[in-house]
């Protein structure tokens, strides 16, 4: 049986198809302004990419902030439950999941028996989320995709202490004005995210194995900053960005 998970986030919509515990394929599109439309579009793109007809698909589970707007889905499940399921599928031993998405970040503690023990999400401010990185990339006039590599070239990460996105942005602007190296500023930004997210993860219980999921996991700088702050190795799955969709598909198949 084929099941599909559709994860409509604030920035991108992801879909994954699973069959008997095997990932058939996945797809990522930009969400745009209409979550329902994005859900349908990414579903169709997935079918085309995997080469299956819609009638071969069994259960469809939607997740992400747009989960209740996806009309093709049979069920909506929160991204907390889906990210936990996806992470456990990739590593059954995982005890803590950190997911950094476009508009929120979360830490999930797992009990080792497949159940969620506790979770925490960022407060209303965008600090510690993908959106925060976007704002900073704009201020620095750097392509966000280059952030990770640039930060690795830092010799002395700058200190960015503000807990608020807007204040942090003005801190960054004054660092630019002072002539601070871009690499150091970017590394400083990653550190501030790391500090914020690890503090949140500590509240629910930081534990090894620790896995990072969500689109921001593709940024090696953030991963390194998390490792440094957590004092633990961080596993990043090659499917980090579609992890929520994989979890949703697994839940659909009754395997999550």
């Amino acid at each position: 049986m084929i099941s599909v998970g559709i994860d409509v986030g604030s920035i991108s919509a992801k879909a994954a198809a699973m069959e008997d515990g095997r990932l058939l394929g996945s797809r990522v599109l930009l969400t745009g302004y209409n979550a329902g439309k994005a859900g349908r579009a990414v579903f169709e793109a997935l079918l085309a990419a995997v080469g299956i007809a819609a009638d071969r698909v069994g259960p469809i589970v939607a997740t992400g902030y747009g989960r209740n707007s996806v009309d093709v889905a049979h069920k909506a499940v929160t991204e907390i439950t889906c990210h936990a399921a996806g992470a456990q599928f990739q590593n059954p031993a995982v005890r803590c999941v950190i997911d950094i998405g476009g508009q929120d970040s979360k830490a999930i503690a797992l009990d080792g028996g497949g159940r969620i023990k506790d979770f925490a999400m960022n407060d209303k401010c965008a600090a510690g989320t993908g959106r925060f990185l976007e704002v900073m990339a704009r201020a620095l006039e750097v392509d966000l995709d280059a952030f990770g590599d640039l930060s690795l070239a830092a010799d002395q990460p700058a200190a960015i202490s503000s807990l608020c996105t807007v204040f942090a942005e003005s801190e960054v602007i004054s660092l630019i004005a002072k002539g601070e190296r871009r690499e150091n500023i970017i590394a400083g930004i990653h550190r501030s995210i790391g500090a914020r997210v690890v503090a949140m993860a500590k509240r629910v219980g930081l534990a090894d194995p620790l896995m990072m999921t969500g689109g921001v996991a593709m940024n090696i700088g953030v991963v390194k900053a998390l490792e440094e702050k957590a004092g633990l190795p961080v596993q990043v799955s090659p499917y980090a960005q579609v992890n929520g969709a994989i979890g949703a598909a697994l839940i659909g198949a009754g395997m999550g």
Partner: protein
Amino acid sequence: MPSDLKPVDAAKDRRKIKSVRRMKEIMTAYYIDAKTASDTGKKVAWITSGGPVEPLIAMDVIPVYPENHGAMIGAAKMGVDLCEKAEAMGYASDLCAYARADIACATEDGGPIGGLPRPDMLICCNNICGTVLKWYEVQARYFGVPLFILDTPFTHTEYSPAANQYVRAQLVEYLSFLETHCGKAFDRDRLTEVGRLSVAGQKLWQAVLHTTTHRPAPMSAFDAFFHLALIVTLRGTQTVVDYYTELLAEMETRVAEGISAVPEERFRLLWDNLPVWYRTRWLAEKFAGHGACLVADTYTSSWCGAMPYLDESDFLGSMAEAYSRIYINLGTDLMADMVVEMVSTYRADGLVIHSNRSCKPYSLGQYDIQRIVQERCGIPSLMIEADMTDARNFSESQIETRIDAFMEMLATGCSPRSRPFP
């Protein structure tokens, strides 16, 4: 077919609490009485929600509660507009929304009931917070009326004899303040009678809240938020005793007939902090949709929590302790003890914590309480960030995700009923 639909409506109808109507009548009559006080020659005192109201009742002064008004403003979804007005007047957006709404409302007689009646005096007790001090000073200046401040020291770990003496002395001053401003002698016998009614009202309120120890619960915290208004505003009157006697009877009937607040109660949750007044229905439906009933809360139980310290035979003497030892005037450890006890009494499966942007004294220490409850009761908890009256601090999609995820977690977690209790 219409005949198919009938049973659904009937079930919903059966779940409706009938006393609501009577409660609305009483509150309407109370506000009419207060708003026409200047015509009937009665005096009006504005008083903080945790303040000692009994002496006012004994002096035939009508107590009016800006905080109850703040709740009404919130429920009427008028909080944002009034808070913005206060901000335009120069008040910080960090100030409690009740204070902002009240200060702005006073200048334009706005809000759902066209403003509160003009006060003849103000009674401010800081057992709930420090905000009320400045708020009441502002209003005393604005209306040009006398202000009485009752300072109740914070109970960190214990209530000392020195604190008791200090508060008792002020209570005596309170009585003479009333004598001066009412122009008549204080009748202590009358206070004894009012005190007796106050204790009786609190006992009944506690009994009403206690009916939710029954599974399924006949009412939820959302109902308690509504029925609370009387014990706050008219404590010490026969009206309160009569009303809660009636409400208690209705709850007992519901228990006997198996009528529950939530259609199929699967989870029992405890709520901490003030309600989110402009979203009570949304929240009630959200939780009920998951089969969850908020069976109790730390907020409404505050109006009967200090009963152990009240002595009917020496009401005036015992008031000092009872008014100092209310929930929000306690240190975090003592608060946590009470939450732990409530988890056990109400057999709660989880704790829902409202981190209330407005109410700092209530929200401070919540992370510690969360940890202590988790350690001692082994139940999970959820924190949601909002505000009781200023809707600008409520993010629906964020809160929805947190609640949905929490309920998914409870639904897949270990069987709530098999969990050990402290």
